[in-house]
């Protein structure tokens, strides 16, 4: 499929999603250049200051600069979301490909395991593991990836099953090409579109889960920040200390909406029949 710039521009979900995500990305990228303040530096004498010239978005209870915390917190939130999505997608693709390509009882067993994993109350299990283990960013990434690959596996499996009996795969086998080559060169490129769409949507889901965990104090631990933990800082007096909760909430909302719009737009781009 040729993706012309006009085609992307015409696709309103995709262009608005890209713009939204790009703005947040630029904010995270260039943020440190805009403020001299350190996100972990505490100044108890400057506790809970309203936005001013020296602290663009005010300070929290410990006098830390909220703007700097939003920038660094956002970086961690994005890092967790993107890296755990990457691992979840890798696990999902490998298991889905293996299950569908082997078929038979292996496929049956793998898919029942997926059913069991999907039936687990994901958030509570993540809460339990993160709560029991020493909370760290790496653990959080691992746990989120471990409970997010199943949807990708299901998509990959159904796509591989529909592709593997097509004539071009039969022809490739008849040419004597090996299974790894057939999978990488012939099957993977033809199943990637729905996987890309789901991956983008998975990023936004993981941002929400990570923010939720951090809000509950189980995600990113102090002195590091994440948008969820900043939101938590403002929960005692949301109206009185609005500069803590509102910007963090808006950033989560904007990012998740942006990724969802990209996912929606990509779906339309890859398969126009699926959009209304």
């Amino acid at each position, binding site marked *: 499929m040729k993706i012309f710039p006009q085609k992307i521009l015409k696709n309103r979900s995709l262009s608005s999603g890209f713009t939204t995500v790009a703005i947040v990305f630029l904010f995270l990228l260039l943020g440190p250049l805009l403020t001299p303040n350190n996100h972990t530096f505490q100044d108890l004498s400057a506790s809970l200051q309203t936005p001013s010239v020296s602290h663009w978005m005010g300070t929290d209870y410990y006098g830390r600069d909220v703007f700097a915390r939003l920038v660094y917190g956002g970086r961690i939130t994005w890092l967790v979301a993107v890296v755990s999505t990457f691992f979840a997608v890798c696990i999902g693709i490998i298991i889905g490909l293996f299950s569908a390509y082997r078929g*038979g009882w292996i496929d049956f067993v793998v898919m029942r395991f997926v059913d069991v994993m999907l039936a687990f109350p994901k958030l509570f299990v993540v809460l339990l593991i993160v709560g029991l283990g020493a909370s760290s960013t790496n653990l959080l990434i691992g746990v989120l990836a471990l409970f997010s690959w199943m949807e990708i596996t299901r998509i990959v499996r159904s796509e591989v099953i529909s592709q593997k009996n*097509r004539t071009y795969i039969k022809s490739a086998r008849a040419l004597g090409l090996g299974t790894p080559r057939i999978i990488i060169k012939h099957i993977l490129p033809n199943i990637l579109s729905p996987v890309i769409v789901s991956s983008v949507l998975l990023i936004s889901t993981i941002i929400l889960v990570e923010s939720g965990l951090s809000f509950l104090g189980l995600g990113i631990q102090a002195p590091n920040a994440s948008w969820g933990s900043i939101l938590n800082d403002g929960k005692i007096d949301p109206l009185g200390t609005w500069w803590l909760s509102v910007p963090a909430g808006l950033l989560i909302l904007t990012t998740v909406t942006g990724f969802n719009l990209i996912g929606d737009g990509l779906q339309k781009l890859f398969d126009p029949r699926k959009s209304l």
Partner: protein
Amino acid sequence: MNSPIQKQPVLEVKNLNVEYPVNFRSGFQRETKQAVIDVSFNIFPGECFAIVGESGCGKSSIIDAILGFVQTTSGTILFEKQDLMKLSLQRFRKLRPKIQPVFQDYNQALNPRQRIGDIFKETLPRNLRESQTDQLLTSVGLSNEILNYFPHQLSGGQKQRIVLARALSVKPSLLLLDEPVTSQDLSVAVQIVELLISLRKIMPMTFLLVSHNLSIVQLLADRVAVMKNGQLLEQQPLSTLLQNPKHDYTKNIISQTTQL
């Protein structure tokens, strides 16, 4: 066309049986349906052997069995004296290029995400690729302009020619033609048949042609087998079959073709 009679067949199929699982649920096999029943035939070097029969009679299952795409229940398939069913996966993979299929569905026969040029990168050695690609394209009546195209940018006839060129690129000794012109419109079908006739003249190749259409078979085949409900009813040289059909079903097919 003269039928070349030589002693050693390229392909020997003996008492072949193929069955498929039906009611395939949850990965566990329940019942089976017999698609090919006790089929035997030989194909000699340079000849075109055709199997004629209505859709669903098991013709394509024979091709799938020869290509190793379906599990056979019993019987043997000897290709150049090697029993394909007893070969290890590795050896079978090495042998595979010698038996090339051309399937009916040309729309699905090419990877939609692969440029035409990349198809030949997979099959031709790097040092000879350019010259051999040009030769192959010329032999199927195409120019090398289409090497940058994706399959969806080609017409049905062009796609089927590319499928043929891809099959020829690995220098097969047996070409399995599974309803090669069925999905084409008449003018393209004629062009493809003419192409196959001319290829037979210039390349030393053996053909197994499978079709429901006797008029196509008449143009290409030296010997013909008639198939019904998974069984071969009779096999004869083409002229004998047309003049002296033994079976009522064969007479029926011949009269239908004449009426058309």
